[in-house]
């Protein structure tokens, strides 16, 4: 009898709670997340990732901020609907319409209209910190994050399957970036100098010998097929054999490198913390430090123009040096 009473009280309480939720004036999305605020200064929120979406560009960052530009990065508009307000860490588009963004709290967002409206597609178990998303086409996508978290989908994100990237001692390493290499290869850059490669679309992964111990935060594939890994202490690693061998390129900076892009003219631009920007001149990497010493988080190239993001959002004067 007493048990029954307790049970019905609990039921009542949960009912009451759901009523409170339903009548709460704060707009809450289904998962209990608070939607991103329409912000006058959206482009000044901390932004950490940018990508091309067809002819448009989409950047993501703190407070669920997603902004997009359809004129090559000059004017930016905030996305009309984003159901979360935490830090979004990475964004990837399969084509001009279909895109995904991931963030803290295990959030995976999807857009079907080129980045204007977004919905929560999936929340990863245990709400891990997701750090990178990459879609090779509208069906196949990969997500990596903290403590070895790795997921993949073959149905455009409807269902996600875990991937085992690191083995043994490597299993718990943070995976900072997932990107594609030549010949259908996939790469993941991780903590403590770790990097991984999959030649079978994420089914199996192997640890690469990078020869460094500092964390690798990012990587990219150049048009000539060379692979670059970027990391702490100004480390730039280059491989010309699909990641079998890596050599360290001199940068002359100790700042951690957060991202890089190869411009249409084939020149590299790498960016990092403390206002570090690196370009290549005559086969050498040359480092400059911006006067504002702002931590730079991501870079994209639109034609000859750079789109530079940092802790204070979009950078108005994106010259390097």
């Amino acid at each position, binding site marked *: 009898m007493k048990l029954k009473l307790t049970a019905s009280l609990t039921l009542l309480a949960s009912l009451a709670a759901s009523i409170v939720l339903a009548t709460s004036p704060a707009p809450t999305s289904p998962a209990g997340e608070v939607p991103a*605020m329409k912000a006058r*200064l959206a482009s000044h929120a901390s932004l950490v990732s940018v990508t091309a979406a067809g002819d448009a560009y989409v950047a993501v960052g703190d407070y669920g901020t997603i902004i997009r530009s359809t004129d090559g990065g000059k004017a930016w508009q905030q996305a009309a609907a984003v159901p979360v*307000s935490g830090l979004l860490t990475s964004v990837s588009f399969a084509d001009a319409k279909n895109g995904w963004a991931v963030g803290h709290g295990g959030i995976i967002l999807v857009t079907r209209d080129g980045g204007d409206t977004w919905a929560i597609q999936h929340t990863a178990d245990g709400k891990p*910190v997701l*750090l990178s998303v990459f879609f090779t086409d509208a069906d196949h996508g990969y997500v990596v994050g903290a403590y070895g978290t790795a997921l993949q989908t073959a149905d455009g994100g409807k269902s996600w399957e875990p991937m085992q990237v690191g083995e043994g001692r490597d299993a718990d390493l943070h995976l*900072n970036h997932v990107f594609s290499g030549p010949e259908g290869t996939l790469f993941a850059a991780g903590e403590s100098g770790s990097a991984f490669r999959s030649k079978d679309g994420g089914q199996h992964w192997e640890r690469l010998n990078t020869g460094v111990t500092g964390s690798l*935060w990012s990587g990219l594939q150049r048009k000539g097929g060379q692979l670059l890994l970027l990391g*702490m202490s100004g480390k730039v690693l280059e491989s010309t054999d699909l990641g079998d061998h890596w050599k360290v390129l001199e940068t002359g900076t100790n700042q951690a490198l957060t991202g890089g892009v190869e411009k249409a003219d084939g020149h590299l631009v790498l960016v990092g913390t403390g206002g570090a920007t690196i370009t290549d001149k005559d086969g050498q990497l040359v480092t400059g430090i911006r006067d504002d010493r702002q931590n730079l988080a991501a870079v994209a190239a639109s034609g000859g123009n750079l789109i530079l993001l940092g*802790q204070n959002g979009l950078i108005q004067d994106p010259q390097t040096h």
Partner: protein
Amino acid sequence: MIEKLVIGLQRFFFGNRLLTLGVLLAFTALMGVFAAQLKMSAGFDKQLPQDHEYIQTFNQYRDVLFGANRIIVVVEAKKGDIWNEKALTKLYDVTQALFFMPGVDRRTVTSLWTPNTRAVQITEEGMKAEDVIGGDVTVKSLTPDNIAGIRERAVIGGFIGSLVANDGSGAMVVAELADPDPATGKRLDYFEFSKRLEDEVRSKFADADTNVRIIGFAKQMGDISEGATSVVEFFALAFLLTAAAVYWYTRSWVLTFLPLASSLVSVVWQFGTITLLGFGLDPLAVLVPFLVFAIGVSHGIQQVNYIAKEVINGADGFTAATRIFTGLLVPGTLALITAFVGFATLVLVPIPMIRELAITASVGVAYKIVTNLIMLPVLASFFSFDKNFVARASKVEEMRNRLMAGLGVHIANPRNAFIGTAVCLVLLVVSVWQSQGRHVGHVLPGAPELHNDSRYNQDVEAVVSRFGLGLDMLTVVVETPKDGCYKHEIMAYADRLTWYLTNVPGVLSTQSLPTLTKLAASGVNEGNPKWASLPQEELTLGEAVRQVPEGLRLYNADCTLLPVNLYLTDHKASTIKEVVAAVKTYRDANPFPGVTVRLASGNAGVQAATNEVVEHSELPMMLYVYATILILVFLVYRDWRAMIACCVPLTLATFLGYWFMKSLNIGLTVATLPVMVLAVGIGVDYAFYIYNRLQMHLSHGEDIVTAFKQALREVGVATVFTAVTLSIGVATWSFSALKFQADMGMLLTFMFMVNMIMAITLLPALAVMIDVLIPRRGPVKAPLMMH
């Protein structure tokens, strides 16, 4: 009945002249003893509406929030930058001087030289923190090499824009004050502390190459107290100017002595009373004794004007004195009661400062009834006037009469009256229109009490422009359940609130625990910007929270308090209002269980409260004062014409005053609100003098034009003269070191003059016009006030 009473009183006082004066003298001596103990007190708290929601928040948290007790000293190189041996040595000396200064909380002294200034570098091996100036570097061992190292670490540590100017031209020492003193429990004497900063820091370390700039609440208060002492000189100057003017007017030392002496006596009584009530003389309230003095002189001039006229007409001193007693006791009392009620309504403004001012002003005006209406005539009865005076005075009198008669003819001419009235009505419309959107609160940057070009405000300007500092801060206090800062949901709520407020126009930058915690979270994750987020896990969140320096006061010991500091673009009332409205909008639309979002602390928060109260009080105050005047005018004259003729000019004067305030960037503040109310109370005096005579002549059957000419001849010069005299006295305040005193001085001067001009032009013009347009049906009643 009243007449019998007046005659009875006259017999009593003049029958016992020596006794009367003896008693008054004894009372003056007694009050003089108390008055001598009067102290200047610059009470900051008294200026705040203590019951206001924001002020209660401010009071509750003032000792735990950032900024209230902070003092900043900047060592600034006049040429070049501070990265050299000399400037860094100076910085070291200033740091030491502050460290050993009584009143400073030593633990909080921070500069490049203090060990709490550390540069954190994140490397592959982890975080590496080192002192910006290591323990091995001393003033004596500074070399270009290790200075370069110091500079590098200052940049890495992010101290450019905080401890070092953006352009490297200066470096600061920041310290918090131990107030109240933990050992003695006594509150810090800002005046003394500020003086010590001048003596032991500024004058010691500033030289041809170096500026020393000092800002902070304690310094500001100290400078205000210092500026307030100059008031005594202004009072003395005003007294001398008034004395000279009264002599020029009366051509008699006796007639100069009478109004000045009786006015001074009432000021002595008032000072004595202030002391007895336990108040000090506040810089803001310093206008009160002056006004009381001015009102006394203004009545006194009308009285000696009366005596002179009686003496010229052949009366002796004693007779003239008894006549002014009987003639002026009732009307004088009524005029003073009007002023009294006007001042007393200020008690309704819920700001202690204004209440205090209302009480002291009312008391002072009440004393006038005794000093001016009883003491002055009794004193006058002891003097006699020789033939020389009569001859001199009548010559001057005749000249003035001709002047006024000429003026009277023009003003009272019905055609001119119409034109004059029409012009004034147009002026009224224009001034009502022009005074729209008047400023509320403080308009100009810097400490509003001090002039823009004051030393303090120059320092503020220099520091603000060279460092990434905002001085106009509004703190929103987020109250949470215990350990709120370890709960992801609560921190995320405070974070969203911060972001919302960052987006409000007028907000320059924001600072709160969640925003810094996110940076710390990134810091413990190798400095990766993708980790700059609030950890979900309580333990991880706590680890990040603990990285945020306690000195920023962004949380308290049991984590029930998460202040959000907003640095505003300026402290204009419109800016503050918008920000306050945004906070209210957010907290109403986004309630969070167990969390209270409270307004407001910080200097801008305090101003928001004061602005609201001042703005909301002004209209009711004015309405009360006008209602009082209307009722009294009606009681005295029992005539609606009088109500219009007296109040329309006052209204025009008030709106012209508003227009004046707007054009001169004088905001409606705790200092200027009472001025406007008091100005109406004094303005009505002029109207009374003129209208009273007008009515008397009308009751004798004269037509309106003749009646007005007579009235102007009798009291016109005295009225003009009074206003000019008072204006000269008050105008001296414009040179005060305190901006609000200068504002009050200018405003009051303007109001005295405008009210006077209205009383001798618009008032008669209106009276003439009403009589022409709507002819009177019955005979005019004689005024109750027989001047």
